[in-house]
């Protein structure tokens, strides 16, 4: 299938500094690509060239197969959700009016706007009564969710997020990440997310792009970056020593589970783990219990399954 976003040899210069230098990659339809890299490596500039808030000095960007340069910037941006690092809610407008911004720009009828705003507040777990509040009356995490609702308001097929969860405490951040994955599963949105946090990138990204000093060092599935870093800086970023655990974190228990012999001794008495959990968690449970296999819960109605230490170790080993 043709990719949703194609970044083709894109560069951006400011004066004689090249802050994005010949970057090319593609984001498949419905995929999440996480862009990681040090501060100043050009991540935001790269993201902003996708919706033309920054014009490339060279190269081109295609969204949905069309060169973004063919369309006036404002029109293009109404079809691309954008969550900026600082959220940037309109402080003088209610949550409702904030979320309704793009639908109103697009001239949706009043009732459709109202329905859509209600739907989005539900989707992001915000009470509908929040619609009447002003952003200053919300917590940082709630504001962030309103920012995401606002970016999603007109059902954009593409969502660009610039460190959207930066301001959140770890627990809420985790929840926000899960919400994003659920959202993507439901709406099929193609997402490019910039983050400083490698764990976040590994958790969310179907693909990861590593930037350094304006260059794209490597782009590919997380497992590939962990197993075959193309550049010493990528290896350093992946923190070689923890690589095996990071690999385990990418795989769900369900994917590594094997059918268990119902007659085997003590299957019922073994420690249990949910099929949705990661192998990293499974390993931790095994170590804690001093066991060498776990009974797997779910999906309901399936045959009994187990996940063994041996299977886990096999997944973490160098190829």
């Amino acid at each position, binding site marked *: 299938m043709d990719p949703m976003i194609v970044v083709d040899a894109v560069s951006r210069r400011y004066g004689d500094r090249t802050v994005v230098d010949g970057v090319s990659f593609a984001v498949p339809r419905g995929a999440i690509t996480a862009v990681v890299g040090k501060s100043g490596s050009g991540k935001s500039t790269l993201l902003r060239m996708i*919706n033309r*808030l920054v014009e490339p000095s060279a190269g081109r960007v295609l969204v949905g197969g069309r060169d973004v340069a063919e369309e006036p*910037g*404002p*029109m*293009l*941006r*109404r*079809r691309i959700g*954008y969550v*900026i*690092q*600082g*959220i*940037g*809610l*309109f*402080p*003088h407008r209610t949550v409702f009016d904030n979320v309704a*911004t*793009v639908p109103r*720009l697009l001239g949706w009828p009043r009732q459709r706007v109202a329905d859509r705003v209600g739907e989005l507040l539900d989707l992001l777990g915000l009470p509908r009564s929040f619609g009447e509040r*002003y952003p*200053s*009356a919300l917590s940082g995490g709630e504001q962030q969710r309103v*920012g995401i609702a*606002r*970016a999603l308001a007109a059902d954009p097929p593409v969502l660009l997020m610039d460190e959207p969860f930066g301001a959140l405490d770890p627990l809420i951040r985790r929840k926000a990440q899960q919400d994003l994955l659920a959202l993507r599963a439901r709406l099929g949105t193609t997402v490019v997310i910039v983050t400083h946090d490698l764990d976040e990138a590994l958790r969310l990204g179907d693909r990861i792009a590593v930037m350094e000093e304006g260059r794209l060092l490597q782009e590919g599935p997380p497992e590939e970056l962990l197993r075959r870093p193309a550049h010493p800086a990528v290896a350093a970023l992946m923190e070689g020593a923890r690589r095996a655990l990071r690999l385990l974190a990418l795989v769900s228990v369900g994917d590594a589970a094997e059918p268990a012999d119902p007659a085997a001794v003590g299957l019922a008495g073994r420690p249990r783990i949910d099929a949705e959990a990661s192998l990293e968690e499974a390993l931790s449970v095994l170590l804690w219990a001093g066991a060498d296999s776990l009974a797997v819960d779910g999906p309901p109605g399936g045959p009994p399954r187990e996940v063994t230490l041996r299977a886990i170790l096999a997944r973490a080993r160098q190829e």
Partner: protein
Amino acid sequence: MGPAILRLVGWAALIAVLVAPQVLLPFIAPLAPAGAPVLYDRASLAALFAAHAAMVAGATVAAVLVAVPLAIVVTRPSGAAYQPLARLLVNLGQTVPPVAVLAITVPLVGFGVWPTCIALFAYGLLPVFEGALAGLRLVPEDVRDSAQGMGLTPGQVLVSAELPLALPQILSGIRVSAIVAMGTATIGSTVAAPGLGEVIIAGLLSDNAAFVAQGGGIVALAAVLMADALAVLERRAARP
């Protein structure tokens, strides 16, 4: 409810004095020299007040119509280069004293309302310009950025985000400008512009403190009431 009552009393007093100046008699009669009239009688106070207020309003509106667009232009990326020039012009209006402006303009436009309005306008530009500039600069970069990122055109960003957010500062500049104009308009009488300055000058020329008190009192009361009304607007604009 203190401020509301005070406000009400203030407006009632102003209207009473304008409609029926004789209510002032018990208060200012002792100020008039023996045998001299206590109440200004060469024109009605209400008419003079109306002329005075019209000059203030006209000059202030003109200052807003020039200074706010100017502040908008110099805060656009394409107009940033003109900011020093705009500042210079606006400051010039403030540095040249209104009396000097009168001296310059009377030979050009003759006596009367026009030179006075020009002086008030020139004098009132700076507060409005600086207020608008400060307000537009205070708009958080994030808000501008996200507005643009959602697909608002530059004009839409200005109208639906920047101006509403800058409104309190803009109003505050207008308030300062209008208060200054209210007082300064009294000098218009030196070039034959009708206004409350006429009453004050008549009092000074004939050594009649009662005239000075009624002219000055009305100007002061009107300035306070206007400042209060604009401050209420400003607070309303600043909410939430």
